[in-house]
C-alpha cells in the first residue's frame, strides 16, 4: 500500500483525467454517436425491410388467391354462357324447323286446294265448252240437215262415229 502511494504521480493522474475526459467527450460527439446512430438506423432499416418483404409476400399471396378466384369465376361464367348460347341455338333451330314444316304444310295444302279448284274450274270449263261444242255441232248439223238431207245424215253418221271413237 505504501509502495502504491509512493508510486502515485499526481501529474500523471491530472493529465490522464484531463486527456481521458476530453477523449470521451470528443469521441462521443465525433465517433460514438454517429457510429451507434448509423448502426441503429441500419438495424432498424433491416428490420423494416424484412417486415416489408413479409408484408409484400402476404400481399402477393392474397393477390394470387384473388386472381385465381376471379379466373375460376370467369371460367365458370364463360362455361355457363356457352351452354346457354348452345341451348338457345338448338331451340332456335328446332323452332325454325317446326315453323318451316308448318309453313310448308300450309303452303302445300293451299297449293293442293288451288290445284283442286283449278281442276274443278277446268273440268267445269271443259264441260261447258263440250256443251257449247255440242250445241255448236248440233247447230251445224241442224243447219246442214236443213240444207242437204244426205249430207245431214252422213254428218250425223260421222259425228256419231266420232263420238263412238271418243
Amino acid at each position, binding site marked *: 500500500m505504501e509502495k*502504491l502511494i*509512493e*508510486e*502515485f*504521480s*499526481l*501529474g*500523471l*493522474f*491530472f*493529465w*490522464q*483525467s484531463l*486527456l*481521458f*475526459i*476530453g*477523449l*470521451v*467527450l*470528443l*469521441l*462521443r460527439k*465525433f*465517433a*460514438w*454517436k*454517429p*457510429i*451507434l446512430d*448509423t*448502426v441503429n*438506423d*441500419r438495424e432498424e*432499416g433491416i428490420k423494416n425491410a424484412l417486415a416489408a418483404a413479409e408484408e409484400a409476400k402476404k400481399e402477393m399471396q392474397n393477390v394470387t388467391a384473388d386472381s385465381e378466384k376471379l379466373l375460376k369465376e370467369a371460367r365458370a361464367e364463360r362455361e355457363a354462357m356457352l351452354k346457354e348460347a348452345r341451348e338457345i341455338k338448338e331451340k332456335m333451330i328446332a323452332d325454325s324447323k317446326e315453323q318451316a314444316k308448318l309453313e310448308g304444310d300450309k303452303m302445300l295444302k293451299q297449293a293442293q286446294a288451288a290445284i283442286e279448284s283449278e281442276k274443278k274450274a277446268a273440268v267445269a270449263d271443259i264441260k261447258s265448252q263440250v256443251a257449247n261444242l255440242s250445241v255448236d255441232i248440233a247447230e251445224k248439223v241442224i243447219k246442214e240437215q236443213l240444207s242437204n238431207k244426205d249430207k245431214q245424215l252422213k254428218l250425223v253418221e260421222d259425228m256419231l262415229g266420232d263420238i263412238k271413237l271418243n
Partner: protein
Amino acid sequence: MRKTFLITLLFATSLFVSNNAFASEKEAEEGADGKDLKTEIKEYIDHHLLDSHDFSLFSIEQENGEKKHIGFPLPVILWDNGLKVFSSSKFHHGETVAEVDGNYYKLYHSKIYKTDAAGTINYDDKHHATNEKPLDLSITKGVVMIFITCLLMFWLFSSLAKSYAKNGSIPKGIGRFFEPIVLYIRDDIAISNIGEKRYKKYMPFLLTVFFFIWFLNMFGLTPLGVNVTGNIAVTAALAIITFLLTNLTGTKDYWKHLFDPLGDSMPWLGKLPLYIILIPIEILGIFIKPFSLLIRLYANMQAGHIVVMSLIGLMFIFKSWIGSPLSFGLAFAISLIEILVALLQAYIFTMLSALYFGFASEEHDHAEAH
C-alpha cells in the same frame, strides 16, 4: 514479440560492451557502478515500470563507463511558487541537478525533488526522501503515450464514423474489424448489464475506456514497452470516473437499496441491529468496487511486465546453452499470453464498470431477491 527481440538486443549490446571493457569475467558481472548483474536487471525493471521524465528507448554503457541514453527529452512542468517549464534534458537522466530561476531540482526514483545546488537528498529512517516535492505536471513518457493513444483513437473512430456516410452505412477497411467490437460492447456488455432503457448514456464511456485500455495495454507490449496501464495513477483516474459515474447517475432505488438493503421483508426492530453492520459494509462497497477495478488493472499489467522482463533478464543471468534458450522460450510464451491479457483486462474493466452502472440504474424493487 519484437519487444522480446529488441530488449534481448539491448541487453546483449550492453553486456557485449561491458565484456569488452573489462577483461575478467568477475569484473564483467559487475557493472560500472560496482553493482552485480542481478541488481542491475532489477533496477532496470523497476525503472521501466515507473513513469519517466524523458522518452528513452535504450541506453548503452560506453567504454569509459558512462551511460549513453538514446531517446529524446520531454517538457517538465512544475508549479513551485509560479509555473516553471523546462526540458528534462537538464536532469541528464537524474545524474545532474537542474537549475531553474534560482531553484534546484533533482530527479530521484523518477520523482522531482527540490534540492540545493549540490543535489543533496535527505532521507528519513526508512530511506525515503524527505525533500520538498513541487507540484509536478510534467509531460512524462506516460502522458506522451496517453496523448498518442488519444490521437490514434480519435483519428480511428471519427474516420470510421465518417466512412459510414461515404459507403452507405457499411463499414469498410479497418471498420470491419472494429465495428463488431463496438457492437459486442453495446449488446453483450452495456445492454445485458445496464438494460435496454438506460444503457445509452453510458456507451461513450464504456466504448472509450475499453479501447483506451486495450490500446495502451498493446502499446505496453511493443518494443517501446511503455507501462501506462500498469501505473496506479492512470488506473486510479479511470476507476474514479467509473465511481463518479456510478454514484452521480444512481437512481432512487440504488440509494434505497444501499441504506435499506433488506427492504420491507423485515420489521424495523429486527432490521436495526443488522443494519449496524450491513450499512457500513454497503457504504464501504461503493468504494471497494472501483478500488478493485484500479488494483486489478494495475496489478495485472504491472505483473505482466515484471514477468516478461524478468524472464528476459534471466537469459543474461544463466548465460548457458540450456538456461538462456529456455528463458527465451518462456518469455516468448508469456508475451503471447500478455497479448491475451491486454484484451482480457480491457474487457474486465469495461464489463465491471457496466455492471456497477447496472446496479446504479436499476429501477425495480430488488428487496425480495436478498
